């Protein structure tokens, strides 16, 4: 099982993330999003961490709120989310610890600026595994 793969779109880009549990699929979606922004190999997870909360009316809203919060922390505090550990996930809320480091332009090249997480063609499905598809505005 691949953790995630990149999807193409005329004006934008998306990911398809998988996981044995919904939690894992959410965590892999975060990794997929990071991989669009920067080569994840270049990001350390030891330096910085923060707690994150997201809410919504259903799983999709929780997912969009979760990924949007990671983007916000990146833009405002320069924090690159290398790894996310979700401690609570329901169809209404999410709690997680995020590990990563501050962007350092000497070592980090940002390939793509993700500006927003969209609802377009957003799917969260369970077959054998959980699968998430999400498209980003770039």
């Amino acid at each position, binding site marked *: 099982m691949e953790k995630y793969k*990149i*999807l*193409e*779109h*005329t*004006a*934008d*880009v998306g990911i398809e993330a998988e996981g044995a549990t919904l939690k894992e699929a959410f965590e892999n979606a975060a990794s997929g999003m990071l991989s669009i922004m920067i080569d994840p190999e270049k990001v350390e997870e030891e330096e910085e961490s923060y707690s994150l909360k997201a809410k*919504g*009316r259903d799983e999709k*809203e929780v997912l*969009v*709120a979760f990924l*949007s919060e990671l983007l*916000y922390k990146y*833009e*405002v505090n*320069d924090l690159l989310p290398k790894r996310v550990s979700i401690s609570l996930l329901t169809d209404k809320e999410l709690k997680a610890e995020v590990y990563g480091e501050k*962007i350092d*332009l000497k070592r980090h*090249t*940002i*390939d*793509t*600026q993700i*500006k*927003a*997480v*969209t*609802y*377009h*063609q*957003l799917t969260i499905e369970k077959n054998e595994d959980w699968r998430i598809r999400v498209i980003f*505005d*770039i």
Partner: protein
Amino acid sequence: MKKEWTGPLEKIDEYRYRIPKSYKSGMRTSGIIYSDERLLTSIRQDQALDQVANVAFLPGIVGSSLAMPDIHWGYGFPIGGVAAFDMEKGVISPGGVGYDVNCGVRVLRTNLKEEDIREKVQDLGWALFREIPCGVGSTGRIRVSDSEWQEVLTKGTQWAVKKGYGVSEDIEHTEEEGAMPGADPDKVSHHAKERGRKQLGTLGSGNHFLEIQVVEEIFDDEAARIFGIEKGSITVMIHCGSRGFGHQVCTDHLVYMGRAIEKYGLSLPDRQLACAPVNSKEGKDYFGAMACAANYAWANRQCIMHWTRELFEKVLGRSPKDLGMDLIYDVAHNIAKFEEYEVEGKRTKLCIHRKGATRAFGPNHPQIPKEYKAIGQPVLIPGDMGRNSYILVGTKKAEEESWGSTCHGAGRVMSRHAAIRLTRGRDIKQELAEKGIIVHWRGRHTLQEEVSEAYKDVNEVVHVVQGAGLSKKVAKLRPWVVVKG
């Protein structure tokens, strides 16, 4: 993910096609596409026309769901979409404005001719690239206090000019005089404010740019004279928007409006079309926040223009006044506004959504600057970095037919990855240099992603809006120095 659209299109005339109301059950009106046969081939390549039909589902839509010739696929509404809604029965939708609220364009004229700066053009290019923050993650050098920050969001360009970033004539030559009424900073989230504060005075990345251009051809001598340009004149074009601020406003209000869908019993074909009645709390809140984002974008472009003038002065040793660096105009091409039109013989206020569409008021419209009353509102159309951009003017026909709207640019036809694949092994910088274009960029893949072939030919797009009578060509510009994020 790409599949061709095969829905029904009726040809009305050479530049107009109709998606009949019967195409999907639930459509309240038809769709009208401004295009010619040639552009339709590329328009059909994605599902943008289905989105034109989806917009026709929205309650209170007045007239048809419209699409400009540079239409392409967007979130909810297509990019290039225009729709008007009744103030009582209609809706307002963040998807009808887009994430980059008040993404827009401005053009500066100068007294300079091509030959005047040939020796200095490299220096100018480097100075602009070094000094004007651009690219992924760029942060601005403007620091504002809390009280001033409120003023940025409510007064836009007027704040910037008061702070010394520009002159009062700049205000008159900006759509809405650079300050949308109705801006309410209390409706903007803390997140949006934090994202925006850091990025004020930055160009951003993607298709945004700053260009030194040369006027290549004049089509309308009278309008060109009024704008102060002639063949060989140097102009500067700035294309950017509201950065992370606008994106966060859109993200936040899509959530609030998602809740409104149930509350108001709306049935929508796509979640990205989330909307609320214009006069509801959710509708008014969105408008108040969106207007803040619009004002942020105007302040942003104003500051960038001010630095451009300073850098010309530094490099050329002549003051902006001496160089005649006057703002011709500034237009917003992602915005919702309240405007009045004749509907069934009655003057009616409507909520107009323009997403990837430019306002194009004709001569004598009360909302355009007095100098332009005789010729119509300037319409500024940015093209891709290897071809052209345009200055057009709006028409009465646009006011009568397309809610005073026209096209906004070239429109992407290829994903960024496809553009990178297409250009593998090519030296785009050299290719542009052979055409006499100097390019500066920051992002690793910017040149590949922004290659001309990734866009429709703006010349064809403009040909259609002129043919349909929605605007008139005044001048064709070609890029000389391109600065991109």
